[in-house]
């Protein structure tokens, strides 16, 4: 299986007609939503379908393919009323922080 991109900014910008201002605003929105979800996880609060769906959407928009994939599975499991395993929770945390780092690197490029 080919590895999914952590942050494919080029592809995302292409979709947005190279609208850099819009892309920056999307990154800022993503950082806020990712931060909120991480805080939820740290406090052992359950993730809702809506919060998984929201982060999946934002990840897709900015080109965070790996996180989008993780959140899509999370959303599906939650919709099917499955409890998330500790392994899954760790995977979500990792995917979020990887993407956050990539966003920071992109912003300081």
């Amino acid at each position, binding site marked *: 299986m080919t590895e999914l991109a952590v942050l494919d900014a080029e592809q995302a910008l292409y*979709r947005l007609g190279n609208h850099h201002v819009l892309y920056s605003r999307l990154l800022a929105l993503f950082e806020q939503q990712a931060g909120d979800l991480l805080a939820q996880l740290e406090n052992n609060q359950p993730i809702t379908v809506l919060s998984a769906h929201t982060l999946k*959407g934002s990840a*897709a928009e900015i080109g965070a393919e790996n996180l989008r994939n993780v959140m899509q599975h999370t959303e599906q499991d939650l919709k099917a009323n499955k409890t998330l395993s500790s392994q899954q929770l760790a995977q979500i945390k990792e995917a979020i922080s990887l993407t956050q780092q990539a966003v920071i690197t992109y912003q300081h490029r």
Partner: protein
Amino acid sequence: MYNKKTSRTLQDCNVLIVDDQTASRLIMTTLLEPLFTCHSVDSASKAIEFCRETPPDLVLMDVYMPDMDGHEACIILSNDSRTEDIPVVFVTASVSDEEQEKCWNAGGADFVQKPVNGTTLINRVKFHLSSKLKTDLLEQLIYTDRLTGCFNRHYLEEHLPQMVKDAERENQALSVAIFDADLFKQFNDHYGHIKGDSCLWKIAKSLQESLLRPRDKLIRVGGEEFLILLPHTSEHGARTVCERILQTISHQYIEHSASPTGYLTVSAGAATYHPNTDTSIDKALMDADKCLYHAKANGRNSYAFIDEHGDMLVGAG
């Protein structure tokens, strides 16, 4: 032409963006705003409310939303006569076979995949708006009387059944009022048909301006005869409209040498249809016509109407 502007451009078109996600609303608004007039709401129920109050030319509808999803909202919009003609384009993350099926079954006009490709989104929106503009223009042409700009008989035949249905569903009285210019043959004979046409245009304009609610419809049914459909209007309301219109027309002071007042006047007849009774809209139209005949016989420049007890009453402007 005062019912609608004759030609609208894509930029005049209103696009309603419906998405609970801030990021999605931001993207669509930013990409579409330079080309069209955009509005956005964050829930399906707000979208339905928006469409009923101020119908947009196109709805871009997210599918997955808490409370009510996009499919459900689309079904509600397509089953309401006020909103059924608004094309709905779904914007959805999943384009699985099942999801596509659901979009079409809900009455969607198209769908765009998320994350959206800006160029595709813009072109899909352009396509649907261009087709909507053409349909609107065609409808306007076939339903409009070219001389006066008000609706024609074709509009009446096509829309009256729906208005009657709405009245029945809402259990609200529907009044009809028929207006006819007095001694109009003499006007044409004396001033010529060109002046006659311009006089009809003035009458239609005054009648239109006397109607205070958008749901009231003005139709030119014959040469110098106009019909007004008044939904949610009782006998009392119909009488008020007749009085107001007689005054408005006589205050135009359109010179008419054969008229006893020296100016053009109109006569009117009105009747009211009450749903869920043993009467019908056809009976109301016939009664209104009888009333008009009575007003004419009664010296013109007056009106007659059927009151709530079924009695004919006469009045003057």
